[in-house]
């Protein structure tokens, strides 16, 4: 009989732990909608090559439960914010010229992509 109570206690405990488990970091009151990029901005649109003069690019989006994926053909994108909505971009001298940076925002309803152009120049 005692064993039954112990098992029951563990099952209830397990259920309680599971109920408290954080499954996502989104606002529970926020309604999930198809993602939409509201703005994509950079602190500088012209950057000197070499890594000491990065531009910080932000992608603001709505829709809830969002994940961000960035892409550029050449150069280095380094995430700044934990949710990856803000990144730094630098490049070496092999990337002089216009570079198109893509940001894809996705949730379970779909995805949307926006771009921003950054010019890499000689100091």
């Amino acid at each position, binding site marked *: 009989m005692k064993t039954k109570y112990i098992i029951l206690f563990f099952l209830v405990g397990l259920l309680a732990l599971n109920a408290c488990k954080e499954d996502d970091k989104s606002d529970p009151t926020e309604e999930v909608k198809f993602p939409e990029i509201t703005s994509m901005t950079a602190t500088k649109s012209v950057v000197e090559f070499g*890594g000491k003069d990065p531009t910080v690019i932000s992608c603001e989006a709505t829709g809830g439960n969002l994940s961000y*994926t*960035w*892409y550029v053909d050449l150069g*280095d*994108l*380094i995430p700044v914010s934990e949710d990856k909505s803000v*990144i730094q971009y630098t490049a070496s001298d092999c990337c002089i*010229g216009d570079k198109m940076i893509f940001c894809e925002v996705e949730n379970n309803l779909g995805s949307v992509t926006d771009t921003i152009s950054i010019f890499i120049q000689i100091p």
Partner: protein
Amino acid sequence: MINYKGLIVLFLLIAGSYGISYAQCCSAGNPISTDGGSAGLQKGAFGISVLYKGSTSDTYYHGSKEIDFVNKESLFHFTSLNIEYGLTQRWALVGNIGYFVRKSEVFPEFDYERYASGLGDASIQLKHQLISQPTHKFALSLIGTVKIPVGAKEVEYDGVILPIDFQPSTGSSRYSIATALSKGIGSDLSLFGYASYEYINAIETSSATYKYGDIVVGALGANYRVGNGISANLQSRYEWRDKRVDNETEVRESTGGSVLYMVPQISYTNKSAYNVALSFDVPVYRYMNFIENGTGQLGNKFMFSIKVSKTINSLFEPKTLSFDELEVLNESQFFVDGICAMCKERIEQLAMKQKNVKWAEWNMETKQLKYKFKDEVDAEKLMKLMAKTGHDTEKIKASDQAYNALHGCCKYRSESKE
């Protein structure tokens, strides 16, 4: 008996070349390696090898000058599987696939590190032995290769799809043509040369096209048989890469360049024909293209490789007879000199090719070749055949020319190893 003089020469070569080493850059695609081997496989023979290559890079260069700038440091651990099959006596087909276990880049300025792993390029190669003169120990081969990017084009790390020059796979196909030659000098030394040209197709992305520079490689080297299955190999390899061209017209002046490597290698072949080779690719001179006030190019410090290979003389074993069938056959034996598993395979295969021989076995300890037959076998003809291939028998001695043409690990005469 180990040739200690040879070991000392090897040590000095390694120490000398390592002492003057600097660095060189890594680039998209499988790393380049040449082992200088031009000898093809025998018909039906099958070779398999596994390679590990590790590289580290942390220095930037303007031309041949090291500069005081570090944007990023890089490192990779690369493996590849190589399978070779002898189609005929002169043609061999080779398949190769590369896998980056880990490619990483560290950005000291941002205290950030990123990684990638995955399949690199696969290649299919056709080797043709154009000239083969075993008596002169000379061989010349032509090699055509097609490289295919089999890995994923968009490997992602930390919310970022990695740039094209850091992806494990190049994202473009490549074609190369090469020639390799080898020439034996005496019983323990051989020289080899290798030259190749590789054309690289453009990578097309949604916003641009990038054509990485074509690559020319030339290598010269020497292989010295130290003894007891140990060989030392020293190679100098020159690599030249053309500049990258973006969108068909924009030449990137700060890409491409040339590097001269010294590649000391030591290898060991055991009696079962397994070979293990260790080598260092040490850059001794480089010229990395650059622009004034530019960041320069990242050059790698050195690469380290381990290769394990095994050759199986034939995939198609002769028909085996049942115990009952063998029992009723006549048996005979004679002395055949040899030393290793490769000798054993060769001697037994030669015996099996002889008319009326139904079964053959050579004992590595007693050096006795036992063979079974139903109808009479011409033993003297069989001995002549063994001697012609380089193996002394109890009545006929192999000529020096035939003996010298044997593979390095098959040299059984003790005087040649002194």
